[in-house]
């Protein structure tokens, strides 16, 4: 690691985990998330000398991750058609956190990717609608629509029982 800019290394240590968690919601599994973050960090590093002076590395890295994920998705689109419903095998019980974690991630993968991106950027990364719109290249109104539909779809996929069990 000796030839890597120390400030970049510090940034990865400080913010890498957050982006890894965003990535796992985007991709659905940790191995793919690690690949996505690594590939995106490489791209970020190319721009680092310019970015660290006046840029926002978080915003830039998020943009790279979304674009990279989109390109991977396009490369695999024939194999990754949204199924519309979860396979029965993933309808596991909610007994432990790991099962729920996997189930939520897989439920996200069932959503159209734009809906998925809006949900995790709004409700995990806590970005305002305008910033999500800018990142995804759409209007704030579209973000609002995707968020509304995404929340509804997630609720349907995971089951009303789960939400009602938690008192919602």
């Amino acid at each position: 690691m000796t030839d890597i800019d120390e400030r970049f290394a510090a940034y990865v240590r400080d913010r890498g985990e957050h982006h890894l968690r965003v990535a796992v919601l985007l991709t659905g599994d940790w191995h793919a998330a690690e690949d996505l973050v690594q590939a995106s960090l490489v791209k970020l590093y190319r721009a680092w000398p310019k970015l660290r002076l006046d840029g926002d590395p978080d915003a830039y890295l998020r943009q790279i991750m979304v674009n990279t994920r989109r390109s991977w998705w396009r490369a695999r689109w024939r194999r990754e058609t949204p199924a519309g419903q979860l396979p029965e095998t993933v309808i596991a019980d909610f007994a432990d956190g790991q099962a729920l974690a996997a189930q939520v991630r897989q439920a996200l993968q069932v959503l159209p990717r734009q809906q998925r991106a809006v949900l995790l950027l709004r409700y995990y990364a806590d970005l305002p609608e305008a910033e999500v719109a800018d990142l995804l290249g759409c209007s704030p109104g579209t973000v609002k629509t995707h968020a509304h539909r995404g929340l509804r779809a997630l609720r349907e996929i995971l089951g009303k029982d789960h939400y009602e069990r938690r008192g919602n």
Partner: protein
Amino acid sequence: MNDEETETRHLFAVATADRPAGIDLLGGFAAARRRDRSRRARRGAGLLAGVTAAVAAAITITLTTGSTPPALATVTSALSSTLSQSYHLSQQTTYYVNGQLNHTAHGSCTVEADPARQLSQSHCSPPNNYTVRQVGGYTYYSNSTGDRWERVPDADLHPVPAGNLKNSFIAATPQQLLAELKQESATVTAAGSASGPGWTGTRYAFRGTVGKVTVLSGTVTVDQHGQTRVFVVTFRNPSNNVLVMTQVFTFSDYGAPVTVTAPPADQTSPMP
């Protein structure tokens, strides 16, 4: 914030809480960089050798078409001529997603090459900021500041295989895309006159498909000496126009001497 939003935030927190041990972002970064450099070096070398391959593939296109013999013969001869002499080349790529220019994917490169002597040098401006030199049986790939180089024996730079382009043309090189057309149909027609600094000529249009969804179209401009001057190719998915990529190759200085020197030895190391 309503309850549904609150619950979604909770679910996302749960969904990211089972992070497995063993993921080392910083430790894995060096390996990821090596893979990226190797890939980009191959792509850079592919650009140099690839111009030749692209032109050769284009010849194949013309031979598989049903266009009129004069257009075929002229274009075929011009493209063949490009393979046999030194030239300078500028390449410009523009890439649109949903009608908006993608600034991270577009860029320009300049190339001087002497295919017969296996000499070439290309420089690509930011965001793809790098230089590639091919000389003495090696291809050298620079870092963004040009003061460190990694070398790869030419023999190790296998051509990137064509294939899978029906699913994605995002990262494809022109030669890959054009090679795909060997098995597809295309048409070539004369499309009017053209001129540039010191030359006049004729523009020929071609059109074909990659797989079932991607339409490839473009022009080859041939000057009064029968040399290729401009080669424009556009790839688009007509069903939604989400992705549109255009590459423009402009040839000049045919026959001009090409001099390429290897980088200083103390700035060079083998690519891992």
